């Protein structure tokens, strides 16, 4: 596709059509895995008392479901042993515990051996809401994408979570999938299925690139782009759902054109998507990178997922304002 085509936004009726109802990425993953278990004897689901799977579901899965209790390091070790024996374990825990408590087992037992363990990490980012910093995972993407050979994915909606379960069946090495907790909005109708390692262009424009991962950040970029379009500022919106391997080519192509990239994520501002974008652009295509994410603090207020996003500025308004300021526009001004 030639870059000149990007000047033309996709037909607006596509974006305005009724989206799918909100659904949790974790339940979409669960339902797809349960469908696949009887079809593939390699698959085995290892749980850690998460409650994601109901009694009827675990009974139906038979020996392909095991609850190992509240022991995440052990979970990764057993998964590694099973994977080295020809299985493909889907391990279930919260992102906070997968990426920090069990990290050494993930690093040594799983990643070092390049084993096909699927780490299905729920409560990613701020999704744990009022449960607080012990259950929020704002470092997991930095940690996981530092590990050699680890594929790191953040589905932007339930359909993508299910799609990545399917994609993972052909992936020989380890995979980290960051999932949410409660239902989150769906991507616009007509969004094509995601491919591992390939950025998704959700909207095209030549003035700025909005790059995001995860349901609310991607929604924030789409909403901000819509708002800015009304002011004559056209933005490309990239869903960078795969942080590793990183689709540098797609990013560089978009950034080369506009020279301005705003990243949006539910992650501390270091090391996650913003870090990945900054690294890629610093090496390949100088562009200004502005990072929107969790400020350098632990959550210090009670609130649900959306409340915390608003509280810490991971919002369409912040995205739009960041673009306006970077382009030297007063709020509400246009490019004309």
């Amino acid at each position, binding site marked *: 596709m030639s870059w000149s085509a990007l000047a033309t936004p996709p037909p607006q009726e596509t974006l305005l059509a009724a989206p799918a109802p909100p659904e949790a990425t974790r339940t979409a993953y669960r339902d797809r895995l349960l469908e696949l278990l009887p079809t593939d004897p390699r698959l*085995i689901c290892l749980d850690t008392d998460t409650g994601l799977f109901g009694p009827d579901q675990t009974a139906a899965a038979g*020996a392909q479901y*095991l609850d*190992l*209790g509240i*022991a995440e*390091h*052990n979970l*990764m*070790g*057993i*998964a*590694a*042993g*099973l*994977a*080295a*024996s*020809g*299985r493909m374990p889907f391990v279930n825990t919260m992102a906070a515990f997968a990426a920090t408590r069990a990290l*050494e*087992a993930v690093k*040594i*037992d799983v990643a*070092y*051996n390049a084993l096909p363990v699927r780490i299905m990490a729920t409560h990613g980012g701020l999704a744990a809401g009022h449960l607080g910093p012990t259950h929020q995972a704002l470092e997991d993407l930095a940690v996981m994408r530092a590990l050699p050979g680890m594929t790191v994915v953040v589905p932007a909606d339930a359909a993508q979570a299910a799609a990545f379960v399917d994609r993972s069946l052909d992936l020989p090495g380890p995979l980290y999938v960051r999932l949410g907790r409660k239902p989150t909005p769906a991507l616009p109708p007509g969004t094509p299925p995601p491919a591992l390692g390939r950025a998704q262009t959700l909207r095209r424009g030549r003035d700025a690139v909005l790059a995001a991962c995860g349901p609310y950040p991607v929604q924030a970029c789409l909403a901000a782009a819509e708002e800015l379009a009304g002011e004559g500022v056209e933005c490309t919106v990239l869903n960078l759902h795969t942080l590793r391997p990183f689709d540098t080519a797609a990013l560089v192509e978009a950034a080369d054109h506009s020279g301005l990239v705003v990243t949006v994520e539910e992650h501390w501002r270091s090391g996650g998507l913003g870090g990945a974008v900054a690294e890629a652009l610093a090496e390949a295509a100088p562009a200004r990178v502005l990072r929107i994410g969790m400020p350098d603090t632990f959550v210090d207020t009670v609130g649900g997922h959306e409340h915390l996003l608003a509280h810490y500025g991971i919002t369409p308004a912040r995205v739009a304002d960041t673009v306006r300021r970077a382009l030297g526009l007063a709020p509400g001004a246009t490019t004309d």
Partner: protein
Amino acid sequence: MTAPAALLPRTAEDLAETAEALAETARRVREHVVDMCAGPEGGHLGGAFSSTEILTALYFAVLNVDPAAPDDPDRDRFVLSKGHAAVGLYAVLAERGFLPTAELAGYGRPGTRLMGHPVRAVPGVEMPTGSLGHGLALACGFALGQRLDRRPARSFVLMGDGELQEGSVWEAAIAAASLRLDNLVAVIDRNGLQLTGPTDGKAPMEQLAERWRSFGWAVRETDGHDLAALVEHLSAAPWEPGRPGLLICRTVKGRGVPFLEGRPAAHYVTLSARNHARARAALRTPARRPA
């Protein structure tokens, strides 16, 4: 002696003969380790020598493994959870035919594959280890895989006693018993010493057998330098249906070299030329019976 476990004699008389042959193998293993520890990097001699008989019994009389078919899906699995005893494992693997004995001379030297802790690049090494407290969960995974695939095979893991201070060991101990993995055998090299002193000085370990029994394991204890006893116990597992087995082996750190035996300093040594010669000479004298 490379016969698979199933073909080995098991009468008391034959066990004694087997043990005699294994003792000579163990002596050669120690010679290799002494030579490696005289290299530029030195090595973890103490824990390698406390576990020499355990590794020798496993690889020469218990494990169903074949250097000609190291990836045979029906093979028994072994994980050296106390990965710092790599020099001992390398020596045993070389004696068993997994890698050329001459390659041991490259241990710790730039460009070779014999790192200070076991890596998968070394034939016969099932899992890289070194950070303590990982091996039991890995072996649980192997044993579970063997059961799910209905393979008549067993998984073994060797842990150090200091390693029991890692909480992940107890996570895996719970899981193995809960999963009723009676094709899993864990061995503890109970030499009583860790890097800086007695294990009991860091974490009291009285009633070790009772602790594991209370977790649901079948537990036995033995002299970890008694080859006949090791072969007898390890071959006979599972000892109780539905329970993973734990063999607590009383051992001596640095066993076989009098000036290192029982000393914390034996944990990691770089042998000078003089001490290399002393250690070599000590290994040529007839083995003493365990105290």
